[in-house]
Structures are given as structure tokens and as C-alpha cells.
């Protein structure tokens, strides 16, 4: 069957767009902005078309296309999308135009726009590649635009932040590359074929020791990107010092590359080893949830606060992933998307506040409720979604993750629940500090959201509500792929725990539907 090559188009638009924006921007910076918006809008249109064309209740990869490429090295150009990656592609397509609309870096923005587009292209490529080396290419390629976004458009300590981010992530990927190569050579020794195709490498026989080492190598790379405690140390600094658009993209999209990588590659390639490592990873995730929540409550800087709260959220995602239960995995995927939406909204709102008031400091920001009621209202909704208020999108994933983890790893779920409580506390407390109380003279003169800003944040707000009241839309597409993923794990590791829960899985999210 000949289908429209959605994925290739989704790759090409931002990549060529980046080049075009770079060239046009030399002569006409204003035109570059329009062009960048047009490219991202087109990308979004095709992403939505992909969503429409995507067959629900199919767990396998769709729109697969494989071409030979760099045959001597065994690398192929192999793309495909399933329920797990579909919404991440959509998220990427959605966030970038909003970043372009909602943030500005002054007159000379050509580089900013071009880097954003390149980053979008590389992220989409990572989400849809079914060849490990192609994934690695794209995964590495995201580093270059991220580095430049931070180092050229960031705040005071941008050079330090960019360096820390870059060096840590790159060191992580060193392990990933070597891990991929070792795996491919194992496969070559067994079959005589050098390939990096996910489908082929999945069936490599590995001794349990080697599998654990490889799994760790992958985990380190993805764990830095995600970030998982204790590999997170770059993230507060980087999120703080990056420009608001950069923080949005970093936390909403790039962080998901890490969690996606774990779900897609660690679980698929090393099912046994992942189960062996599960107690370790779950513990780290639970520590991440608690540590993130507690540290967040001590922050005076709004951006750092969101950075630490992101750490807690990522902890939840990892928790769901390593629960090996259908609910947990579905919850993890849902949460990746929802956290992306919420955190993007947070960083954009904080950026707008700082634009008006010139500070990220909660000690300076007081009593915003009065002068800027609309902004305060939007912030409230975002915050409630982040806390996990039922009816808003943050709830669905968190709930599923807790259910899933509780069924398989009870105590970790209990610890994580404490995290939810702390998270609610610090966000509400912070909210109270910033928005209530008496506004000082300077705050009184702040103006509320402009029409353009309202329109920019509207899609995010709409999704926060819609995905909260009607999560079935996403779950219908995610669940089949999650089942397929788990079936693979179960087949590889006939552990009893999984099978029982596989059977009992009906629909524990009834409440949320």
C-alpha cells in the first residue's frame, strides 16, 4: 500500500525551514520570522494530518518506511510511528510555533528561529527513527541547536549553563554510542548481519551480565537527558539560564527524548536487564520525585522552581515506565505529553511576568492578582494541572502511573504519593506568595496579557482542559502500543507478575474518562 510519506515530510519541513530561515534572515530578519512561523505552522498541519491518518487500536508501527543509507556501516534510514511516539511528535510540532509566537529575543532573531527549527527537526527525527544509529544521529544533533540557544540568547550565566548542559549530555551519549555498537556487534556475531534496525536488534541474544551493562549505558545517556536523579545537576542551571523559549523546548521536548529513549529502547532491547535494574531505577525515580518536590519548595527563583518540579514529574514518568504494568506505561506516555504542555505554559508565563516586572524572584513578585488578573488566571489553571487536579490533564498520567506502580511496586508508589502532596504544597504556597498579598508600586503598573499573548497561550490552555476531561482520545492510541511493548517484554521474560496484571487490565482509568 502506498501511503503519503508523512514522516519524511515532517522531517524535511523543519530541516529545510531552518536552512531557509538562516538564508533569508541575512537580508530580511522580519521575513525570517514569518517564514519560521509558516514552516512550523505547516509542520503542525502535517502532524495533525498524521494524527488523523493514524489508525487507532493498532499497536504496531505505522507509516513505516525504510531505505538503505550508509550501507557499508549498516545504517538504514528507517522511520515509523506508533502510539507512543505519535503524541510526542505532535507535542514537538505544537510547542515550537508557540515558542516562536510567545517569546522574543530582540531584533536579531534569525539564529534563534533557525536553531529552533533545527531542534524541531532533530527531535521529530529522534521520535520516529526505528534505526538506532539514525536515532543517535538525531539525538546528538539536538545538542548543537540547544547549545546555541542557551549560549547566545540566555541569561547572565549562560556560558556556564550551556557548558554544563553540553558536557554532561555528550558524555552520556558516549555511553549510548558504545552501547549501540556493542549490541550491533553481538547481533552481527550471531547472525552475520551488521544492522542497527530496532526490529532486528531486539532479537539479539545477550548474556544477562552484558545486557545489564548495555542497559546501564543506555540509561546513563537517557538519564542525563531526562533527567533522572542524580544525573540532573545540569537541569536547574540550564533551565534557569536558557532563554524562556529555550527552557520551554528543553523541558517540554528534549527532556522527553530521554524518557522516550528509556521506554522505547531500554525496555524493548533489554527486557530482562530492565527488570533486573528496576529496583534501582525505581528507587532513583522515587528519590527524584521527593528530592525534586522538596528542593522546589525551597526555591526563590520561579524558573528554578519549575526546573525542580520537572525533575519530580520526570521521576513519575520513570516510575510508570519501570512499573512494567500497562497502566504505568500508558500513564508514563500520557504524562510525557501532558508535562510537556504544562511546563511549556509555565515557562512562557514566567517569561511574560519577567518581561513586565524584570525578575524571576518570588521575593520581588507579589500581589500580581490585582494588576494582571488574566495572567493570574491562566497561571492558576496551569498550576492546578501541574498539581494533578482531576479534570485537568496533569491528573490522568499521574493517576495511571500511581495505579500501575501500586499494583507492581507498592512501596515506591507510596513514596511517590508523598511527592504529590509535597508538590501540591509548594506550588500552592508559591502561588500564594506571587499572586496574593499586596502589590508594590511597580507591580501595580504591570499590564495584563495582550490579545496576541492570550491567543498564544490559548492552545496550551485548551489542551490542558481537553486532555483532562477527555483523555480517552490519547489513551485509545497509546494503549495498543503499550500492550505490544509489554507483550514483547513478557515474551522475553515470562515473569508471573506481568502476566497477571496483563490479564486484569481492563480500564482502571474509568474515573478519569
Amino acid at each position, binding site marked *: 500500500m502506498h501511503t503519503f510519506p508523512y514522516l519524511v515530510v515532517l522531517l524535511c519541513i523543519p530541516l529545510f525551514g531552518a536552512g531557509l530561515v538562516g538564508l533569508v534572515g541575512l537580508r530580511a530578519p522580519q521575513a525570517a520570522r514569518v517564514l519560521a512561523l509558516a514552516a512550523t505552522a505547516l509542520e503542525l498541519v502535517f502532524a495533525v494530518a498524521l494524527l488523523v491518518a493514524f489508525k487507532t487500536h493498532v499497536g504496531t508501527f505505522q507509516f513505516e518506511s525504510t531505505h538503505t*543509507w550508509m*550501507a*557499508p*556501516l549498516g545504517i538504514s534510514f528507517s522511520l515509523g510511528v506508533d502510539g507512543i511516539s505519535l503524541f510526542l511528535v505532535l507535542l514537538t510540532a505544537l510547542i515550537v510555533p508557540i515558542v516562536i509566537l510567545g517569546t522574543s529575543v530582540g531584533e536579531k532573531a534569525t539564529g534563534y528561529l533557525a536553531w529552533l527549527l533545527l531542534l524541531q527537526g532533530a527531535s521529530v527525527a529522534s521520535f520516529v527513527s526505528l534505526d538506532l544509529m539514525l536515532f543517535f544521529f538525531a539525538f546528538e*544533533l539536538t545538542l*548543537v541547536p540547544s547549545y546555541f540557544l542557551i549560549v547566545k540568547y540566555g541569561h547572565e550565566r549562560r556560558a556556564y549553563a550551556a557548558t554544563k548542559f553540553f558536557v554532561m549530555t555528550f*558524555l552520556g551519549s*558516549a555511553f549510548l*554510542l558504545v552501547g549501540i555498537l556493542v549490541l550491533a*556487534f553481538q547481533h552481527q556475531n550471531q547472525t552475520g548481519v551488521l544492522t542497527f534496525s530496532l526490529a532486528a536488534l531486539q532479537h539479539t541474544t545477550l548474556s544477562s551480565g552484558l545486557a545489564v551493562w548495555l542497559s546501564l549505558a543506555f540509561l546513563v545517556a537517557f538519564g542525563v537527558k531526562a533527567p533522572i536523579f542524580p544525573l540532573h545537576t545540569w537541569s536547574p542551571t540550564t533551565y534557569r539560564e536558557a532563554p524562556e523559549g529555550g527552557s520551554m523546548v528543553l523541558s517540554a521536548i528534549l527532556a522527553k527524548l530521554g524518557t522516550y529513549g528509556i521506554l522505547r529502547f531500554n525496555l524493548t532491547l533489554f527486557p530482562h536487564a530492565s527488570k533486573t535494574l528496576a529496583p534501582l531505577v525505581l528507587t532513583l525515580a522515587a528519590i527524584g520525585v521527593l528530592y525534586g518536590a522538596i528542593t522546589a519548595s525551597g526555591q526563590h527563583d520561579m524558573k528554578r522552581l519549575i526546573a525542580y518540579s520537572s525533575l519530580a514529574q520526570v521521576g513519575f514518568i520513570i516510575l510508570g515506565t519501570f512499573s512494567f504494568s500497562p497502566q504505568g506505561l500508558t500513564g508514563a506516555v500520557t504524562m510525557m505529553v501532558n508535562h510537556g504542555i504544562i511546563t511549556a505554559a509555565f515557562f512562557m508565563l514566567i517569561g511574560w511576568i519577567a518581561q513586565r516586572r524584570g525578575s524571576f524572584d518570588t521575593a520581588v513578585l507579589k500581589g500580581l492578582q490585582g494588576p494582571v488578573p488574566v495572567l493570574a488566571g491562566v497561571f492558576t489553571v496551569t498550576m492546578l494541572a501541574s498539581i494533578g487536579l482531576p479534570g485537568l490533564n496533569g491528573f490522568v498520567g499521574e493517576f495511571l502511573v500511581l495505579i500501575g506502580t501500586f499494583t507492581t511496586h507498592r512501596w515506591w508508589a507510596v513514596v511517590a504519593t508523598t511527592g504529590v502532596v509535597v508538590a501540591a504544597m509548594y506550588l500552592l504556597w508559591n502561588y500564594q506568595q506571587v499572586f496574593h498579598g499586596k502589590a508594590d508600586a511597580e507591580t501595580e503598573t504591570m499590564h495584563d496579557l495582550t490579545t496576541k499573548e492570550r491567543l498564544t497561550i490559548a492552545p496550551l490552555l485548551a489542551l490542558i482542559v481537553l486532555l483532562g476531561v477527555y483523555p480517552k482520545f490519547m489513551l485509545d492510541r497509546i494503549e495498543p502500543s503499550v500492550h505490544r511493548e509489554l507483550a514483547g517484554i513478557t515474551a522475553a521474560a515470562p515473569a508471573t507478575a506481568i502476566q497477571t496484571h496483563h490479564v486484569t487490565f481492563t480500564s482502571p482509568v474509568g474515573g478519569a474518562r
Partner: protein
Amino acid sequence: MNHLALPTVSYAALAPILFLLLGGVALMVLSALSRRPLAAGTVTGYSVLIGFGALISALAEYGHVNGAGPSSTVASAIAVDGFSAAIAVTVSVVVILASLLSHGYLRRMQIDAPAYHVLALTSASGAIIMAAANDLVVLFLGLEILSIALYVLAALNRRSAKSEEAALKYFILGGFSSAIFLFGIAFTYGATGSTNLQVITRTLGEGVAAKPGLLLAGLGLLLVGFFFKVAAVPFHLWTPDVYEGAPTPVTGFMAAAAKVGGFAALLRVLLTAMPQLSTNWTPVVYSVAVATLIGGAVLMVVQRDAKRMLAYSSINHAGFLLVGIVAATSAGISADLFYLFTYSVTALATFGIVTMLAGPRDDDAGIDRLSGLARRHPAIGAAMAILLLAQAGVPFTTGFIAKFSVIEAVVGHGSIPLAIIAMASAAVAVFAYLRLVATLYRTEDIATVDLGYDDSLTDGPAAFAIGLSVVVTIFFGIFPAALLDFGRTAVAHLLP
């Protein structure tokens, strides 16, 4: 009266060497005989033509070897195989690009154009001789032809005191390392009874080398000589000074040709003549590779001068090439061939851009001079950015494929820690490259000072060569299959 037994010489197989060497000599004679100084354009054109001649004959040799298999000529002193042909192709490309890149510079600096080109052609022929040498004595001669011409080239810029100083440093340390190398040849000869690589490997294979101590001393001395030449840590101390002081196009040529020649010879000696001793040399090469990878990358970060930074960058690249040698498989050799070709092209073009920015005396290549380049001259800035990213090994450039295939080879060989160290050093190096790229795109304080290079940026031949290199870098970065196959076929026809 005995007849002198003359060896049979296959001139067709020597054609790339002869083109360059005789082309250089002919140019020298012509410029000496002509009444008026030869026009710079004529000389550059001549040199490019000679380079093309060498390239075509090298490709012909490659095709011939593919059909007829590897052989040797001149009493088995010169190897006629895919490996030497592939290196000859690389060196010819280096000659063509280097000629184009130097054209405008020689005019601006009022350097005698024939002198530069004669020396460059001669030196390049030395690099090919090193790669084709099937006898340690021929290897030594190739090394000296390469080096002696480079000593003079380094001294060519009479406007800068640094140039002579660089030449002197290069000369003393070059002579020192050549002497060590020669002493190594003497010991190897004493231990195995021959300087011919096939005879040596046969002797080693039969286990009749009676003097293991002598043999190992010879191997050690040869290795030290090589490590000096290819600038491996801790034998690299001359490199940054020489790279900084030499005229910038010469630095580029040196970075490409000397490294190609040195590594080609090192690969051939270790992997075809002395594979039996690999248990002895692998640990040495391994540890030097680690030192070179880390030293090059770390010291690169702290440099304030573009040429010094690129010197350390070339040291880091040398580390990657050594990793390919540790792999000691045909995958490792072909990875190194790919690496040498792509590195030569990107390094030459990078130095080509630094040449354009040299200013009137070419004695200051501070990184500040590059600040905001991309704002003043977007095309050249973008080319520089792409070349630096390629050296950094960013995906979709040749640099990535080169690093990747080397690491693939060494993981296939089983040296996983070395692969991780190589990647970690790449991480540090990439950071330094990216910082330089960020400098290119600095918006602050540009167009306020005259750096004395704006007119030199309209240097046509250099711009053409740089453009060509960028195209090669990106094209083979996205479609590397053809070039990788070229290297593999070359290694498949390696004289055993």
C-alpha cells in the same frame, strides 16, 4: 666484469609520485630560467594541474590494483596496492586544495610563488612515498623529502619573526625524531636482517628473529619517531608552536600532508610488517592514543589563538587515528583511510579560512579576530561554522562518519574503554569547537575595528577551494557509502 642488476621499475605505478616530484623540479627549473618572475596565477594553475595529474594517475593505479591485485616494484621497495593508491588520491586532493588556498596569500605576502609550490609539490611526493614504501629505507627517504621541504615552507613568511622561529623548532625536533627513527631502522635491520617489510614480517613469522631485545628496541624507537611526526601526546610539544608560527597556508598543508604521510607509514609498518609484535605495540599505541585524545581535547579548550587551537584539534584527531590502529583490523585501517581523507579536506579548508583572516603580516591568529566573522561575511562565517562542526563530528558531516567508523572498528575489536575515552574526549573537543562557532556569530563589538583582512576575503581561488571542501564535507557526510567502499576496497588490496 659483472653487470649491474637493475631492478624492474613500473613507472605507471610510480606515476603519482613522479608527477609531483618531477612537476616540482620542472617548476623550479622553469622559474630559474625564466627572465621575468613567473606570474602567480600561472604557477598556481600549473600546480593544480600537476595535482590533477597525480590524482588521475593515482585513480588509475587504484583501478589497476583492483583488477590485478597488489604487487610491488623497484626490487620490492615500493608497494603498488590499494592502500598506497588511496593515500595518493588523498595527497593529490590535498595538493590541489592547498595550491588554490595559498594563491591569494602568496600574493598578499609577496612570497615567491614558485618557491612555495616547488616545495609543496616535493613535500607531497614525500607523503606518497611514505605510504607506498615497502622498505624502511624508502620510508625514511619519503619522510625526509616530506619534512625537509616542510622546514623551508615553515620559514617562508619573512614578515613575521614567528615564522623563522617555527621553522627552527620544527627543524630541530624533526631532525631529532628522524634520527630516532633511523636508529630504530638500524636496530630492526640488525634484528631481522632486512629493511624490507615483507622480509621482516616473514622473519618474524618464522620466529627466527634471534635478538628479541634488539627487535623490541627497534620497534620502540620506530614508534617514538612516528609519534613525533604525527604529533601524538607526549611527543606533541613542537606542534602548537610550529602551527602558530608557520605561514597559515603552510600550517594547513602541514596538518594535512604530514599527518597523512605519517599515519599511512605507521599503519603499514605496524599492521603489515609487524603484526606478530602486536602484543608488544598495542599497549603502547593504546596508552599514547588515550593521552593524545585527552591531551588534545583538554588543551584545545584553553587556547586563545585559532591556529594553536586547531593544532590541538589536530592532535585530538591524531588520537582518533591511533584508535583505528589499536583496532588493528581491516575495518580499522579503512576507517583510518576515511578519516585521513575527510580530516585533510576539512582541516585544509579551515586553515584556508584562517589564512583569509591573516591580516597584513600573518602573525596574529587570536580568536578575537574571528569574533563576529559571520556577521561581517555570512558566507565565509557559515563555511567556517560548518567546517568546525565537521571537525567536531556533528552528524551529517564527514567528521561524524569518520569518528563513528573508527569507534565502530575499535568496539568490534573489543576495546570498549578506549571507545568511551575517545567519545569523552570528543565531548570536550566539541565544546571547544562550538565555543568558537559561537564566537563567529557574536553580535557585539563587530565592525568597529579594522582587522586588516576585509579585502583578502574576496580571494577567489581560496573561496572556491573552501566551497568545494564544504560541499565534500557535507555530501560525504550524508552519503558516505561510496567513499567508505573506496577505502574498504583499498584495504582489501593491501600488500600483505
